[in-house]
């Protein structure tokens, strides 16, 4: 019985490891919604501000979409005092209103459509991902031919690298926290500008 349980546990671990892996997509790929280099993502490390994963995720989106009131959420700034510790939708709504940050605060089964819309239009979003945890959704790559769709997530508890999730793994991840996502109601950021010699 114990052997069977261990085998089952091992299979689940292997399956999860396969379902979630480091994404090979570079940070400046225009397919991504969150186009931030890793050293910038590391500024929103949850262990520096314990229990502030929601603010870390929203702050990362703020940096990407050039919304300073959101980007400086964890720091003392002209936009207000730093906001630490755990949050719920009401608290997010309150401090966003206080700092005049426009957000879509979405809960329930609609989050899937909103997350797809956000990624499709180049906007990152802060999402519930994992048990009582918030992460930043960095992109959604729709299915292409035989290649299935996959989601790219940046975890503010980990090494802040982009993690690639299959559709099923991402579903489990999002449901584990409860269906809640926060999207900044601002234009997306442009793709990182490159001097491409298009005129030649």
């Amino acid at each position, binding site marked *: 019985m114990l052997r069977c349980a261990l085998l089952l546990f091992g299979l689940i671990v292997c399956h999860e490891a396969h379902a979630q892996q480091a994404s090979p997509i570079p940070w400046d790929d225009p397919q991504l919604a969150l186009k931030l280099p890793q050293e910038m993502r590391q500024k929103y490390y949850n262990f520096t501000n314990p229990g502030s994963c929601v603010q870390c995720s929203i702050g990362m989106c703020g940096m990407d979409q050039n919304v300073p009131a959101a980007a400086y959420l964890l720091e003392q700034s002209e936009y207000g005092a730093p906001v630490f510790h*755990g949050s719920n939708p009401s608290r997010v709504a309150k401090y966003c209103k206080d700092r005049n940050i426009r*957000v*879509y605060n979405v809960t329930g089964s609609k989050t899937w459509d909103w997350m797809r819309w956000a990624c499709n239009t180049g906007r990152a979003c802060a999402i519930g991902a994992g048990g009582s945890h918030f992460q930043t959704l960095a992109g959604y790559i729709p299915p292409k031919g035989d290649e299935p769709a996959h989601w790219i997530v940046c975890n503010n508890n980990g090494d802040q690298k982009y993690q690639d999730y299959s559709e099923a793994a991402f579903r489990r991840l999002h449901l584990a926290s*409860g269906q809640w996502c926060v999207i900044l109601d601002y*234009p997306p950021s442009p793709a990182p500008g490159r001097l491409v010699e298009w005129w030649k």
Partner: protein
Amino acid sequence: MKALAFIALLLATVLAQAAEPKPNDFGEVVRRGDLVQHVGGEDKMEGVDALYSQAMDGLPTDDKDKWFVYVVGTKGCAACVQLTDAWKTDPILRAYAKPENPKESWAHFHYYRHDDPKQAWRWNDPKNPNAIKITAFPTIVVQPPLSGKWGNPSSIVYQGVYEGDPKRLQQQVNGSIRFYLERLNQRQGGQISSVTAEAAVPLVENGFQQQQVPPMILPGEDPNPVSPPPREPRLPLRDPSIEAREEIVIVKDPEQVYGSGESEAIATVAEELQPTGLRRLRVREIDIEKAAKLYGVDPSEVPVVLRVEGQDVREKRAPKVDPNKEWGPLLSLWFGIGSLISIAFWCLGLVILLLFWVCVFLFIIWLLRKVGILAPKAGTQPAQVVVNQAPAPAPAQTSAASEYDAMILQRKKQLEYEELTARLQAARAANSAPAASVVA
């Protein structure tokens, strides 16, 4: 006392619990159910009704096909403030973007602060030589949409410094977008129709006259698009609100194919460009690379003299330099590294020639001495022989002594000769006497 201590302990415990970080309350997520709450901005509805009414709304419109127009400003930049104010009212600028109303805006608009540490990674990335560089403010950048409908979203379609003229900006931006679309169309084999392409360029409304739209050039037609050149980032950080300084800029030919005549011709033209009267402009010389970036000088144009005001070229003149010109004044030989190298080689050749003739002369001398035509060189005997000999008298003394010795020797020889002669005569006289007497 114990009671007071107990109360204090109780209060401290309660306060410590209150200061502990709250965990995320995901129970509220479940309690809310399907809900979309829009926070911030102009909230027209309040309360639970507003929440549920918004929840029934569909998703926002898909804006992934919108172009990007963004301004990069910095702290303390008066022109940046001027541009931000102009963008609130000017119809030309608002045809591109409505910053306060993104949903009705033709393009996604951003105003980036160059000095914002949270955005500094976007500019001048040392790790990526192709990353966008911003060196002047306010800089306006145009990029294609993220959808990829108009090519690579990372392409910089337009980058320019706003100089307070919306009409000029409109011409530059529209020209760049059209040029970009033409190039894109050529690469995609003419898949973009002219109607679709024109839809990508914003139209200026509210009574402003639209720019004349040129026809779309299709592949196989005249491939000579009249288009603005790609704008390269300008080097100096210049605030357009500050009056630009007028000066004369000289760009010399780096290859110096015109030799000494170039400097003369340039000096003449630079003098012609000076204003009349007492006012004199500063004359500055820069290299062709810098001139190309700052003033758009083509390398084929050099040597050239410019009269500039800030970064605007007011007048450009090419000095008339004749490549077949004869040698100029002697002093002009010193101009140019080519002349100096020629002179150095000439001097070296002269020295080598001189050395050669000296060697020939010495060889002939040696040969004549060897043959015996010339006396051997004094002091050619080995040194030890000289050392072993008695010190020789001075040359003058030697000749006098030898003459004296010769006279003494001659006198001695004469005296001996006379003595011998006398003895011979005496002997002859003795032989001539009678023989008997001798017998007897």
